[in-house]
């Protein structure tokens, strides 16, 4: 094993860096910029049973050290993901990919997972129960331990591949949700999804986003995300993927010291398409500076 390798739910990664869902499309477009096989893996665009246009525009607003998005799960639907997007990805990516799935009912999560399950390129399912930008599904499953457990059990029965539940920070106690999905059979949890926020256009005296509210991401949320990763890693035995404002190699190491087995990078990809490539490039030098031999050894190293 190399210095950067980690094992995520039984699958070895060359490094812990994973572009987060919704910031990396289906990967192949970033392959125009660099060889995406350098990545540990990536989590593809959140996929639902039916095609979704998403929310009205504007969908994006800037914030101090971050951004709001209210894209609303725009995606071509699971059938076209299988017939069009994944074949394009396979031409440029030879590693197992993380399939991010979403739904508006327990049955929809199961339908999407069952359809994708047969595709051998999928290594893990990341089950999004935390999208703040859709109504009647998404986050409502991730803010109640019982509903979160129900989705987990149903998806668990639909696939033998590892399932990682993506958790919302918009709750009083994220560890209660994490424990509930662990007990229901989750192989891992990833956190945090975005924090619910908004901006107002002063000139027009109206919310800046068409959806009124959106999810906050970027460096502004990093300390909040790190705290929740730390608390969750203490509360569960399954692997935790840390994400939220990660922008540089040092952030990856902080997340891992807080208990993350792997680290997703989201908003940074939108500001700099080479962000993940550069983080991976910088990791060995930063590890040398802090006398870290192997990343696998530091997971949870700061937990007291």
């Amino acid at each position, binding site marked *: 094993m190399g210095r950067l390798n980690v094992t995520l739910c039984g699958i070895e990664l060359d490094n812990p860096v994973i572009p987060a869902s919704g910031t990396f499309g289906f990967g192949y477009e970033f392959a125009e910029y660099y060889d995406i096989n350098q990545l540990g893996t990536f989590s593809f665009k959140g996929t639902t049973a039916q095609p979704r246009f998403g929310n009205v525009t504007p969908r*994006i607003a800037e914030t101090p050290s971050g951004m709001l998005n209210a894209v609303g799960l725009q995606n071509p639907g699971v059938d076209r993901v299988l017939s069009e997007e994944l074949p394009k990805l396979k031409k440029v990516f030879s590693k197992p990919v993380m399939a991010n799935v979403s739904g508006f009912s327990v049955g929809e999560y199961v339908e999407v997972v069952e359809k994708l399950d047969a595709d051998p390129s999928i290594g893990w399912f990341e089950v999004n129960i935390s999208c703040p930008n859709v109504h009647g599904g998404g986050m409502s499953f991730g803010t109640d331990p019982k509903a979160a457990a129900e989705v987990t059990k149903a998806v668990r029965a639909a696939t033998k591949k590892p399932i990682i539940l993506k958790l919302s920070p918009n709750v009083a106690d994220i560890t209660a949700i994490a424990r509930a999905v662990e007990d229901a059979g989750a192989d891992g949890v990833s956190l945090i999804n975005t924090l619910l926020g908004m901006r107002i256009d002063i000139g027009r005296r109206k919310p800046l986003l068409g959806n009124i509210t959106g999810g906050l991401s970027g460096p502004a949320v990093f300390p909040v995300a790190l705290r929740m990763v730390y608390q969750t890693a203490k509360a569960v035995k399954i692997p935790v993927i840390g994400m939220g404002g990660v922008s540089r190699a040092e952030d990856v190491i902080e997340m891992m010291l807080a208990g993350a087995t792997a680290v997703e990078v989201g908003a940074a990809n939108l500001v700099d398409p080479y962000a993940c490539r550069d983080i991976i490039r910088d990791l060995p030098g930063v590890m040398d500076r802090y006398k870290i031999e192997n990343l696998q050894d530091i997971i949870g190293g700061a937990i007291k």
Partner: protein
Amino acid sequence: MKQTVLTVQTNEPIAKSVFKMTLTGDLSDVIRPGQFVNLKLDGFYLRRPISVCDKVGNTLTLIYKTVGDGTRALARYEKGKEIDCLTGLGNGYDAALSGDAPLLVGGGVGVPPLYWLARTLIAKGKRVTVILGFNTADEVFFENEFRALGANVVVTTVDGSRGTKGFVTDALAGLDYTYVYTCGPEPMLRALYRATKVDGQYSFERRMGCGFGACMGCTCKTITGNKRICREGPVLTRGEIVWED
């Protein structure tokens, strides 16, 4: 798309709240009029997408309006300042479809991308007419620059303080044209679409996250399916536009 560092050479006001900036550097990915660049400004998280006004050799011209904190900061950049840019973004205009007498219609800071296009079309021997629409006389820019290219130029202002009083569509009567190229605020694009019958290319503006197709922040519906304004746009052909209310 290319990520590159461009160096500011000049940055000066040319009309009310409108600045012209020239930058030098590697422009190998800037290949068509109507494309844009995405600038990383100090202290701002998201990049600022600005349309390309002109490219000559390794010199890029941008024209931008100070509308918020980011563009106001950009207006303070001085000669020698280096800016991290993503270049060569968006599809740009297809100059091959113009016919003999293309009409170019720009509204406000929708005018700049038409300049390189006009220069390209005139170099190909086309008879180019340009309508430049503004609100007031103090907002008018590039009237003389378009004339110097050899274009037939009509200026409109909403208050009548310069040129024809009214909107760009009020200047259409009597003009003879084979094709429309336009860029400006969406109500202007829509009015022009209704007031003309010939085919054309319309450049749209949306708030963007990334500017290169990753975030799905700027999606719009078209006759031929969903398109990202930053990637499959910003230029849509007349036949594929779906006007949303």
